[in-house]
């Protein structure tokens, strides 16, 4: 046992590791940049990317002006998805207001509305939706359909001799009906932040890892201290490993930070194994640092490395399904996301945190992440050696 410890301590990588660690902990700016931006990003992302549809501004043209028509309007307002922006006297005026972007939706109750209701005919109202934002319009359409359906049900039940007779007819011989019983799993409250926070976590780990990895590598190059490192008996792979280790330790603080922020600010739970999540996070950080060092082998200065980052980071974060659903991407693009470590990490993070999944389900993603980490580190070590050899 004792010899083992002595053995480990005599590894060449050890002093290198300690040197890097000391260098990093002395860099106050680096530590601040590791803590502050991720926290801010997580909070702003979580707060700002909110697809919830409430308080849509509804313009109303009530040509009927009866109790029946007011009932329709109040049904819309009660739902809290809509609020009345203004009343207009004609459809033309309404359409002008919509065109100017003052309204999200318009409701037109025609003049024969009450008459048709009295005659027990189907009375129709017209609902106009500003579909420039097609997502919001689609959801609003669903809400409106539900509001009208609920109103119909309410109108039918107290007054309805008709409905009673129909029901009897239905049970005697005619076919029944089919309904969808819908259960929303894992996130029954439809908290959109849960999706965003678990996705942004992966983006943060990879992007911060790559940023810091490339910065610390290029700094050595810029200052010319890389030659000094090469003079030591350590091998290129050892130098790289010693560089990455402390960074990895430091970045793992980001995992803890993000989990705390996610839990306290947004109430995102961790339903599965925390240990598994952290190890997946470490792999993700490794992949990020690997990307950073890889980029660093192509650039001579900090500024160049950062500009190169623009070619790598946007595709990485956008083609990951971390903030938008993968199914919404074009078909040919969807398989490409499998090459993205962030995609695998978001699957893992969502699996562990929200679905309580374990390693038996998530092993393909973990394996993929491991492959990325190893391959990226290996390639950058190889390029680094070639450049300096």
């Amino acid at each position, binding site marked *: 046992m004792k010899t083992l410890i002595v053995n480990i301590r005599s590894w060449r990588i050890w002093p290198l590791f300690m040197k890097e660690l000391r260098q990093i902990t002395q860099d106050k700016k680096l530590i601040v940049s590791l803590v502050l931006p991720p926290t801010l990003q997580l909070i*702003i992302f979580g707060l700002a*990317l*909110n*697809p*919830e549809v409430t*308080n849509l501004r509804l313009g109303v043209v009530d040509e009927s002006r009866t109790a029946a028509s007011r009932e329709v309007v109040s049904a819309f307002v009660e739902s809290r998805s809509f609020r009345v922006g203004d009343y207009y006297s004609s459809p033309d005026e309404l359409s002008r207001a*919509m065109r*100017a*972007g003052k309204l999200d939706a318009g409701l037109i109750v025609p003049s024969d509305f009450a008459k048709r209701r009295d005659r027990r005919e*189907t*009375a*129709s*109202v017209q*609902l*106009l*939706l*500003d*579909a*420039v934002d*097609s997502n919001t319009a689609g959801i609003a*359409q669903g809400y*409106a*359909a539900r509001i009208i359906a609920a109103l119909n049900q309410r109108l*039918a039940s107290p007054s309805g001799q*008709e409905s009673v007779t*129909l029901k009897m007819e*239905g*049970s005697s*011989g005619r076919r*029944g*009906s*089919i*309904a*969808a019983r*819908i259960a*929303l*799993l*894992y*996130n029954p409250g*439809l908290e959109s932040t*849960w*999706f965003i926070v678990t996705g942004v976590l992966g983006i943060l780990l990879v992007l911060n890892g790559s940023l810091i990895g490339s910065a610390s590598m290029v700094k050595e190059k810029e200052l010319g201290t890389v030659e000094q490192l090469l003079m030591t008996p350590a091998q290129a792979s050892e130098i790289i490993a010693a560089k990455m280790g402390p960074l990895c330790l430091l970045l793992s603080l980001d995992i803890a930070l993000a989990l705390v922020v996610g839990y306290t600010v947004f109430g995102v739970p961790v339903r599965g194994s925390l240990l598994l999540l952290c190890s997946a996070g470490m792999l993700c950080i490794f992949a990020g640092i690997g990307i950073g060092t890889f980029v660093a082998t192509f650039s001579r200065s*900090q500024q*160049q490395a*950062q*500009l190169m980052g*623009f*070619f790598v980071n*946007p*595709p990485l974060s956008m083609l990951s399904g971390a903030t*938008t659903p993968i*199914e*919404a*991407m*074009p078909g040919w*693009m969807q398989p490409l996301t499998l090459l993205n470590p962030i995609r695998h990490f978001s699957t893992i993070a*969502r699996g562990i945190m929200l679905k309580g*999944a374990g390693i038996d*389900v*998530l092993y393909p993603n973990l394996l993929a992440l491991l492959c990325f980490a190893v391959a990226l580190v290996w390639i950058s070590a190889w390029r680094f050696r070639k450049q300096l050899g």
Partner: protein
Amino acid sequence: MKRIIAQARKELTQTFRDRLTLTLALVLPLILLALLGTAISLSVTGVAVVVQDFDRTQLSRDYIDALKASLTFRVVPWPLNRRAEEALTSEQARIVVVIPEHFERDFLRGGQSEAQWLIDAVDANTANTMRGQASSLTNAFSAQHGAGNGSSTGQAAIKAEMRMWYNPGHDSQQFIAPGAFAIVLALFPPLLAALAMSREGEQKTILQVYVSSISAHEFLLGKIAAFFVIAVAEWALALALAMGLFGLRFAGDPTPLLVGTACYLFCSVSFGVMVGAAIPNQASAIQAVAGVQFLLSFLLSGFTFPISNIPAGIRWISALVPARYFIELARDAFVRGSGWTAMWHAPTILALGGMFFFFIAWRKMRHMQM
């Protein structure tokens, strides 16, 4: 005036000499625009659905066929003996539909049969849309198979006719692409300007400027003019791409957008120059511009979700984000087409913002020059 032009020409020559910067300036905006326009979308199609059919009758097969026929859902195979929830946890499917035994029998007897839908609601927005699709698909199926529409009220009392205006095809690219256009122009022109400006500070060539006869505003205007020219080139390329790839067309009077573009580019270039003047270090300047512009224009400009959804505590910030006004302008020009009456405020605000940034940069420069 002559000195401004000379300064601008010098700046352009310098930029064209640096190959990395040049590709950054002209190629990257296009890549990013294409990426943002295609990858960021919220209208899902082909959502993977696992169906577990315990009934195995004509009716249940018809129901599955109805599922298969819809563009939204894509049925993927799943062995009956494995737990269906595993398909959700491993993200091989987003939805599980369980058709219980006696599905057909109950229906034929006139009762209510239920198909159980388990929806992975981690992505709340998609789940919400899926919920709507699931019930409308089932209602349509139920009606088609000769039954009352579920609620057994017979004829509905009120019917809503819904019209989707301006974007009847529900095409989310019509919404995202104009925004992507704005984000690209928020990021790259100021980035180049900030780089050039902070390089002067970093390499101390700014001292030569101090001792020359050029005054602070001439120097700044020269820089801004040069990068404005590049920005216009980027704008033209991006516009061509957006029209070609995403099929954007002017919906109405294009002049608000043209005037607004000039103001917007002036505003974002001035912002870059201001940052560059404040931070005489290229690496930090890049980080500052990229961080601020990307975060603000991406998150607080109404690019993906409506601004009214942002909590009030930070919503006011979005009023300070130039991209927000340009996105409004671009969406109006390409989709709604309402023209000057609705849009006059946007170019005004952008121009004022540009002047503000210019003023700060000028204060900074004049201060140093004294």
